[in-house]
């Protein structure tokens, strides 16, 4: 997957026909050198010009000194998937510069500090040496600030080269620094200086340019998925958050803390209507959720693979004692500690079956900022309605990268607190039996601790119990309870967010995907169409699977399940659930730590089709 694409630039080199809003910038820096301000400023400035963008940060599991890359893709057609090739290299890391240049697309350009000696110069790319040090010196930036601002040099130079509007850069800096004039001015001074230097000294010798567009990004925002999920969580009315830091989920809790302290803290007293507790580990974190969920609070955590593994035993307890909790797993690459700063969809099977002994869970699968926001609040409704843990499987790509998205919609339903009986309800009903299927949907009624009625109390437990929650080892009690729980799981099928289906008449081929691979599928379908391969597409948004998915597979002649993991985990789940349809379902799965790329997928589907 990492092989370089021969790009349409080959020819462009010759006739210099402009490449407008359809290329990728790669900024190579050193971790800890503070390039985030510069990179997000660039991204946001271009976005402000109406150009669809996406930004991906490829960073090491380290604090300072190792290589880091940031890509900014411009796509006039609105594609936001990962692009494997890049055309503009901002080479700020001496360690990787040779390899970075090797992988640059033919006809691409390299910005680099002029004092560097580049050993093997390619003759099919353009070199722009930049006097970074001299420009910083000239700017008169106080020495203690130099390291903070010097990345602005490449922002200014790129602004000249690509025609990025300086006002938008200033806007973006204001955004970044919350309109604090001093830092904005100090950074902007260097941007202007570098801009001017490039205007005067850099003869443009390449076709790349940014042009203002209309109508493509209206009413859209630029955000990371962890923030979107956190915002949704805040609008879900979260009450208790217990967590333990782990990349790439930590920033979700950071964002949540910010939102909640803004929206749910009494500004006069400083008192909070929520609790955030940093636990001593993930067992502690999920344990706190189970206690809080049982007591009647909306409780959530965010973690990643290793943390979820530690939660296994408690997940089984929450499932079996029927306690609503919400667990976000922002997936990174596994097995084990794996690649903490790389993205995957590798925890699908683990989450679905987390726990021993026939445990199975409701899982939500966000693809976008909108999904992340929506599942932020909806996960609580589902958890409380179904009285069960709900897992939300995001990933590093969605969680930590900047995505374009539509403005979020305020929840269209009031909070669903599920079947909770008050003292009055018990009085009226004349009875309370914690695990009885009163309504035939498998979902029992519960009472909350503190309910002032002599019959309200029950003793929750992970051991076998009868309808009244009383310990029982009787075979019939066991079976009755498990059958009810399976009925509840079937109820869940109808309650969870249904798949999104784009069915094209006349095609035999179906694609099934979920989560962040959506961006890849969307672009890939267009590429396939260009190759004469028309596809229908079903995007899963949740487990357990619902009839819509079964029917989609039925209607297709063959289905490819596309996912960013090694073993084709969702395909396996489809096999398990629909053995009768299994022969027509094929897995296309790949994982190397990078989000799936549309060209790769297109090739993969083409190959499969040819093999037939």
């Amino acid at each position, binding site marked *: 997957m990492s092989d370089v694409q021969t790009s349409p630039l080959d020819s462009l080199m010759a006739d210099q026909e402009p490449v407008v809003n359809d290329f990728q910038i790669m900024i190579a820096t050193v971790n800890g050198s503070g390039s985030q301000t510069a990179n997000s400023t660039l991204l946001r400035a271009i976005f*402000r010009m109406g150009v669809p963008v996406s930004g991906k940060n490829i960073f090491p599991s380290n604090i300072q000194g190792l290589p880091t890359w940031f890509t900014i893709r411009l796509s006039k057609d609105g594609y936001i998937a990962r692009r494997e090739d890049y055309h503009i290299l901002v080479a700020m890391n001496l360690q990787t510069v040779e390899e970075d240049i090797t992988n640059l697309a033919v006809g691409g350009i390299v910005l680099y500090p002029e004092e560097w000696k580049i050993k093997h110069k390619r003759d099919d790319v353009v070199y722009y040496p930049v006097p970074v040090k001299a420009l910083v010196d000239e700017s008169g930036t106080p020495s203690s600030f130099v390291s903070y601002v010097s990345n602005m040099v490449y922002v200014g130079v790129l602004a000249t080269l690509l025609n990025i509007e300086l006002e938008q850069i200033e*806007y*973006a800096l204001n955004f970044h620094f919350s309109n604090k004039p001093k830092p904005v001015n100090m950074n902007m001074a260097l941007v202007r200086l570098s801009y001017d230097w490039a205007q005067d000294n850099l003869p443009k010798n390449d076709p790349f340019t940014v042009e203002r567009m209309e109508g493509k990004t209206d009413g*859209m*925002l*630029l955000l990371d998925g962890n*923030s979107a999920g956190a*915002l949704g969580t*805040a*609008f879900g*009315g*979260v*009450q208790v958050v*217990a967590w333990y830091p782990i990349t790439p989920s930590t920033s979700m809790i950071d964002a949540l803390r910010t939102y909640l302290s803004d*929206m*749910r803290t009494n500004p006069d*007293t*400083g*008192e*909070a*209507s*929520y*609790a955030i*507790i940093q*636990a*001593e580990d993930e*067992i*502690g*974190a999920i*344990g*706190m959720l*189970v*206690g*809080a969920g*049982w*007591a*009647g*609070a*909306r*409780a959530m955590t965010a973690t990643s693979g290793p943390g979820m593994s530690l939660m296994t*035993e*408690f997940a089984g307890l929450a499932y079996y*004692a029927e306690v609503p909790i919400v667990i976000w797993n922002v997936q990174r690459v596994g097995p084990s500690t794996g690649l903490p700063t790389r993205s995957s969809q590798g925890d699908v099977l683990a989450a679905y079956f987390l726990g021993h002994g026939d445990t199975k869970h409701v899982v939500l699968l966000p693809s976008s900022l909108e999904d992340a926001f929506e599942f932020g609040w909806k996960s609580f409704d589902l958890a409380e309605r179904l009285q069960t843990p709900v897992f939300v499987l995001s990933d590093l790509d969605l969680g930590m990268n900047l995505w374009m998205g539509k*403005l*979020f919609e*305020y929840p269209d339903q009031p909070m669903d607190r599920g079947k909770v009986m008050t003292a009055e309800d018990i009085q009226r009903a004349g009875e309370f039996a914690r695990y009885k299927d009163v309504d035939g949907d498998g979902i029992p009624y519960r009472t*909350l*601790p*503190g*309910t002032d*009625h*002599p019959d*309200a*109390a*029950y*003793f*929750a437990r*992970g*051991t076998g119990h009868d309808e009244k929650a*009383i310990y029982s080892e009787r075979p019939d009690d066991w079976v009755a309870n498990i059958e009810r729980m399976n009925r509840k799981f079937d109820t869940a099928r109808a309650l969870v967010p249904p798949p999104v289906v784009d069915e094209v008449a006349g095609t035999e081929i179906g694609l099934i995907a979920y989560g962040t691979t959506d961006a890849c599928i969307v672009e890939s379908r267009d590429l396939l169409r260009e190759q004469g391969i028309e596809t229908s597409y079903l995007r899963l948004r949740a487990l357990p699977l619902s009839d819509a998915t079964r029917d989609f597979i039925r209607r297709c002649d063959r289905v490819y399940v596309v996912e960013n993991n090694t073993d084709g985990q969702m395909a396996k789940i489809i096999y398990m659930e629909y053995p009768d349809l299994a022969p027509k379902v094929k897995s296309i799965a790949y994982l190397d730590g990078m989000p799936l790329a549309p060209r790769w997928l297109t090739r993969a589907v083409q190959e499969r089709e040819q093999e037939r």
Partner: protein
Amino acid sequence: MGTRVNQIGLQRNDYKGRPSTLCQGCGHNSISNQIIAVCYELSIEPHRIIKLSGIGCSSKSPAYFLGRSHGFNALHGRMPALATGAIMANRDLTGIGVSGDGDTGSIGLGQFKHMVRRNVPMIYIVENNGVYGLTKGQFSATADIGQELKYAGLNELPPIDICLEALAADVSFVARSFAGDAKQVRELLKAALSHKGTAVLDIISPCVTFNNHETSTKSYPYGKLHEEALQDITFIPEYDPIIVDVHEPGQVQAVRMHDGSHLVLRKLDPVKHDPTDKLAAFRLIEEARIENQFITGLIYVDEHRPNLHETTHLIQAPLVHLTEADLRPSAEALDRVLGEICCQ
């Protein structure tokens, strides 16, 4: 004359739970009885209590008291976390946690210490018998060094001292007692109920079934023959609970266990021991360890340490009482946030 009721009109029976399935004579049953007695006596509303436990014989016992209180029999060693979450969700509830020495001292040591460090407002009782009762007699981490058990053999590791562990984790209330000393258990329970942070009660609670020596001839009445081989490991004799007589502050008292061995208790004299002096508390425990005694009584208390509600700056109303209007920010709030992050 009708049945006696307390100030809120409840009978003692209303504080009972289901019939105990623990062994006849198990110390844990005595503790359950004192919890029932104290809650009845103090006229505590049962619905304001939550009972929390891990896994073990001890952790089963909440099923056998306060049947009108909600309870959660959690996972082995993981009750502290669950309790923390429940109590943060509803600060009106009084949490009574019951754990065992295996549950707290072995698998649960980390959670226990972090709960203490957070000063989660609750009573945390360790029904300490030095063995794993429910899994039939292995040593727990609180077993005495040099102890021999019928099934587990010789213990060559030093014990974890629950009170010392609590102290090291900055506990705000820690006491030790003995299950057979009903009066002291009740007094300490009452004190704990009025404490605003974590109140750790380490209660020595003999396992009459498994805390038996194999070798000591003094232990069983049946002499050598029995000892040799007659025991069917599935046979569990029925014992009477072990009760201590009036035990005065300052006094040292040896309690005879069913196996004939003796446990030496020393009751703290509140006149001589200042329970707000932490250094004194460390010294007491260390000295008693050297002398093979168990200090009983209130070892340390700090009424000023902020509890977890305070350090998380929680509002006064229980979180679970908040309504949708309190919990879900308004549509305007969303617009405001979106306005800030939407750069168009």
